[in-house]
């Protein structure tokens, strides 16, 4: 009887924590997407500055990426298709990690286009922040997948 309460609390925590973490992560990406959506030309300039995508593709990236963040972030906040949203965000952050690493290696001193509240240059800080988001999204996905598969 004495052991039951902690187990219930554990179960509650296992249910609540991923949801809270998911909502916070989704909120961050939704806000980031909103910023890019409303400042689309500025974001296109940031994409061009990376000099990675061919010119015709830079516009597509600048148009589509904000919507990936808006849809995945928004749905994660709403609690819809959570694991798929997490997977999409993990993919997004992993790709951005590669882009940042290549840009750092090339020594380009450009605006990262990833600042939530202020403009920031590509640097170690941006790289670390992206890494945190990648671990956050990837870890949460793994956690939720494990929980669902163990139930079935």
């Amino acid at each position, binding site marked *: 009887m004495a052991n039951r309460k902690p187990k219930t609390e554990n179960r509650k925590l296992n249910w609540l924590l991923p949801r809270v973490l998911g909502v916070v992560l989704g909120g961050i990406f939704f806000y980031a997407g909103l910023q890019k959506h409303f400042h*689309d030309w500025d974001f296109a300039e940031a994409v*061009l500055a990376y000099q990675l995508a061919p*010119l015709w593709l830079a516009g597509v990236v600048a148009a*589509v990426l904000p*919507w*990936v963040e808006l849809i995945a972030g928004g749905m994660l906040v709403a609690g819809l298709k959570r694991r798929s949203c997490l997977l999409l965000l993990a993919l997004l952050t992993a790709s951005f990690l590669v882009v940042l690493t290549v840009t750092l290696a090339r020594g380009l*001193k450009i605006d990262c286009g990833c600042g939530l509240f202020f403009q920031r240059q590509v640097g170690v800080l941006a790289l670390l922040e992206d890494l945190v988001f990648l671990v956050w999204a990837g870890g949460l996905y793994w956690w939720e997948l494990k929980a669902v598969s163990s139930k079935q």
Partner: protein
Amino acid sequence: MSRRGLCRQDLAWAAFLLVLAAAFGLVKHWPLVNLSFQGKLAAHLEEMRAQRRQVQFQGVRTLNLSQAYELFQKGQSLFIDARKPEEYQELHIAGAVNLSPEKVQRGDNPALTGIAKERQIVVYCGEAHCDIALKVAEKMQALGFTQVAAFLGGFKAWDEAGYPVDTSK
């Protein structure tokens, strides 16, 4: 369902969401995408930037690369590097001094009070996209410096042209 099956299902939904995002993005930002397909995006952005700067930094004199180099050759002008100190230390225009926007905010800064108000000053930052040079030039004009100009190409254009540079390391 097995873990692998769940993963496959999640991936399929993620792909669907990606397609949905692509559709929304392409429709909502069609003018941007269209310009990009036509290869005119960079030129259009340049035009937009120039228009914005004309409004935002009204009254600030600007210089292109050849005009800046001409002043450099005459040797009378003071070149101000408005980038971060670590970037300045790495490489800067020969003879330039480092004066970041934060230092210019305080008009009584010793770095500023040592400069004659009527001296020809050329301010530059990293590259053509940055506005810091214009901000510093505008602030210096407000502080009473009469011959300030912003070199818009920035250090990148100067370095690529092979003009004299120096390091503080």
